[in-house]
């Protein structure tokens, strides 16, 4: 069971309060109408699925109902931190994206 820190509620809460939102900071093709099938299929179906550090979206489903980002190690389940989407983006960019 994970214990996640919600950056909006400013409290650590049990995993059961949260919903998993998948990989964070994925980039949607700028113009889906003209994107070729491979690009669009990549966006829809393909995930990085790393063994190691992963940036994830979580929603605090039973609390503030807001999304935030968590950097979690998929191999060890250790957590580097949680941020609001805008704060998390800065940290993510500073690290040079997903590593």
């Amino acid at each position: 069971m994970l214990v996640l820190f919600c950056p909006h509620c400013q409290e650590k809460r049990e995993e059961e309060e949260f919903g998993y939102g998948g990989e964070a900071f994925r980039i949607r093709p700028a113009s889906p109408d003209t994107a070729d099938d491979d690009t669009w299929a990549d966006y829809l179906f393909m995930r990085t699925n790393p063994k190691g550090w992963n940036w994830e979206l979580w929603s605090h489903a039973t609390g503030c109902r807001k999304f935030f980002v968590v950097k979690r190690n998929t191999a060890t389940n250790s957590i580097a931190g949680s941020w609001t989407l805008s704060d998390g983006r800065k940290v993510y960019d500073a690290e040079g994206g997903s590593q």
Partner: protein
Amino acid sequence: MLEHVSRSPLHAFGLPLQATAINDTRGVWANELPSLGYVSLRGDSKDRTFVEKVTHSLGVALPTSPCTYAGTDGAKVLWISPDEWLIVSQRDRIGSLAADLKAALQGVRSQVADNSGGYTQVLLRGRNALDVLQHTTVYDFAALEPGRVVGTTFGKSSVYAHRSGEGFCLVMRRSFADYIWRYLVRAAAPYGLGIAVVETTGHAALVVA
């Protein structure tokens, strides 16, 4: 034409008829606070104009710290998220409260919605009230400080909960009230559940004998 009748979500359980004054024979005492008024307020807590206008209209500082609530004589303001609050008041006062808020927030990016039909509250107290909450939610209610309100799980549903006097107050959605009450009755069975008399004047509370 049928007469319009407003019924509480827990009407079917006939709680008012079973209510007795609190005594030592039961470990948990509970009852519903039916037919209160609820207003959902949305707006940006970082917008000073918004916070000032709401504070002025309600007569109580809008709680902007996470997981806190504020109360006046007539209304209680629960922090739900950084841009959402739930205002609880007597049902007959909620219309004017919402109208005043809407008037005060003219031209400010915000939303005031009367959600009175959408929620209800259950008060819980007694020597085993904490035990019951620990059976039903994942939050550590022993560590919950007075003045704080948390949204957490309740069985497979969710509630907003805060301390109320010596007990706890659970704010729940109408559609889950039936499930939550049945869950509560089941969880409280080992300790003995009593249906308490609800004081409806002023600050609602369960009456001690």
